[in-house]
């Protein structure tokens, strides 16, 4: 099964093996045919209108602003409805450095997102701490506090790279099982259990 999106030729993608492994996982779990086509329909809809949370802590966030403006125009892809409230958003683009003081706040924002929810770690800082590897106050990668779906390196990544990352995310959505899609949820719960943040209701 060739999973692609927005008329990108399948061969143009990187990381096809990863998506294929997800497809195989689906197949092994034996997707029921009827539910399968419902899934397809719903996923088609979902993956074409992913709404981001307006969330930017630093430099990378400015490129996210450029992404929204006329030149790169993310409205072409159905992502332009950037929401200021996590309750209305589908994914967080963690654009910028996350520091100790911000960590519990980010976790709370993540918890407030409505299911199904996704995270893109944007920029070296969010991926691994980036240039601030030696800092006493920077979290070395947001995957220490929330589960990450797509890693996007760069300092900052260009808007084109951001488009690519969100398209990867929509590809990932396409191979999800929406009905009875327990596998993803379970993994999420496991992650959250392993990384507890007290005082935040999950």
């Amino acid at each position, binding site marked *: 099964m060739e999973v692609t999106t927005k008329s990108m030729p399948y061969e143009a993608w990187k990381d096809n093996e990863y998506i294929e492994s997800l497809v195989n996982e689906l197949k092994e779990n034996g997707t029921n045919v009827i539910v399968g086509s419902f899934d397809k329909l719903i996923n088609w809809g979902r993956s074409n209108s992913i709404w981001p949370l307006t969330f930017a802590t*630093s430099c990378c966030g*400015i490129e996210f602003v450029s992404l929204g403006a006329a030149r790169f125009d993310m409205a072409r892809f159905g992502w332009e409805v950037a929401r200021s409230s996590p309750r209305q958003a589908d994914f967080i683009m963690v654009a910028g450095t996350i520091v100790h003081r911000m960590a519990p706040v980010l976790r709370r924002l993540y918890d407030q997102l409505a299911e199904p929810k996704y995270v893109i770690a944007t920029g070296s800082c969010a991926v691994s701490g980036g240039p601030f590897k030696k800092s006493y106050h920077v979290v070395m990668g947001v995957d220490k506090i929330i589960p990450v779906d797509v890693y996007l390196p760069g300092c900052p990544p260009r808007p084109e790279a951001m488009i690519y990352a969100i398209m990867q995310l929509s590809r990932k959505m396409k191979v999800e099982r929406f009905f009875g899609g327990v596998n993803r949820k379970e993994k999420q719960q496991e992650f959250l259990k392993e990384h507890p943040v007290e005082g935040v209701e999950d």
Partner: protein
Amino acid sequence: MADIQERIAGQFPEATFDTSDVLTVEIPDSKLHALARFLRDELRFDFLVTIVGMDWVEKMGCIYYLQSTSDHSRIAIKATTADRENPMLHSIADLWHIAGIFEREVYDFFGIVFIGNPDMRRLFLSIDWKGYPLRKDYDPSLNPVPTENERQSDFTDTYVEHSDGKVVKEQARVFEEDDFVVNIGPQHPATHGVLRFRTAVDGETIRKIDVYMGYIHRGIEKICEGLTYPQTLHFMDRMDYFSAHNYHHGLCMTIEQAAGIEVSRRVQVIRVIMDELSRIASHCLFIGTFCMDLGATTMLFYTLRVREQILDIMDKTCGARMTFNYETIGGVMQDLHPDFVKDVKELLAVLPANLKEYDKLFTGNVITRNRMEGVGKMSREDAITWSVTGPSGRASGWACDIRKTHPYSIYPELDFEQVVMHEGDAMARFKVRMKEIEESAKIIAQLIDNIPEGEIQAKVAKVLKLPVGHWFRTVEGCRGAFGIYLESDGTVNPYRLKIVPPCLPAAAAVDHLTRGQKIADLITIGGSLDYIVPDMDR
């Protein structure tokens, strides 16, 4: 300066002087406050540029940089204490409003307590942070990533000195007991980054704002102490990312002057053109986001059009749209792209029409005028005592442009005006920036046709060591005076690299400017001050 030194020596016989860089007066802590008052009132050093906290291991202390707003000369006061367990100095928060915030920063990083400061809380780090990170003996393993929400407190400490000389710690309230406090931020679209305002309101009216920073404090100053000089440069791109060129310029210039490196005229010209291009791009983005905050969303798309054009120019020469890492010690990274001159001329050609369009769409608009005129008035005195420099300070009638007051590089040869307005309201701050775009374009037009030939990189030692000493230099960033305090102990790493950001005072002044105003005006005032949160937090 000699007669100033004499006058100080006459009043304060215990003072000692150091003239290696800016005239520095060392004074025992007991006379610190008196000397500061004397300098402010008698010798008219009325602008507190910054307070540099220091840890020299055998003693700790602060260096206070002061500047005169009339003749722009600088002077520094140095006060130290040998007590590492309970280091204490006297506060000067009653002389300058901004000193209260600067002292909190020093307390946060070094643990030096200021006697008499009414609000001795940490500034960037959480209440439960262990240790003081900029001390030389700090152990980072003490503070893992927190797994619980930060403890909040409505109380602050003050240290009061009694007549017998004993210092007693007392508790004070941040807000009044019956205040209704609303949280704005850290995740809020109008705070321009992760800044938090704890706002005490009475209906719609703001009573007090407690500005809560540190949500993007990255510890750049401490990281730099472990890096070589060329390695420290790239952090300058990541604080105020719109002033990347200007900040780079500032640090390169400081290191070059310390090491005695000459840069070619070609490099100087390129740097100045890049600085001014950045300023145009930065002010364009300011106009866009500010208008968007006020509800005029489309303006963002108009202004980003010009910004993208500038980013393309940068992209061709520097290879990046942001975080250019372009200036190096003694030169620049790459030579100009062959299209550079042509592209810049195209930009200059379309700029006037764009500015006219902004004016037509926004400046004269009735809603705009109602929301901005007379809102968030800052007097010249306020701007000085809060150290609000840059376009925001100039909108209050304070001529504080470093390019004019402490000219560097080739600015003295250039013909441009310092834009100063006197209304001091949000509208003035907006208009100053509009005019500054024109002035920057004027500067670029003077240079673009005669970029001299020459080397783009001076010869610099592979392993760069600076002589023992200290230097304080400033440049004009897009948002105000950006300062670097550099202290070297003769090794390949800086002993201390203190960054003086223009945005910290701007954010600190929000409390003062919004008192008694409506909540909706908080957005206008905050937006018009145009602070960048990673810049103030570092």
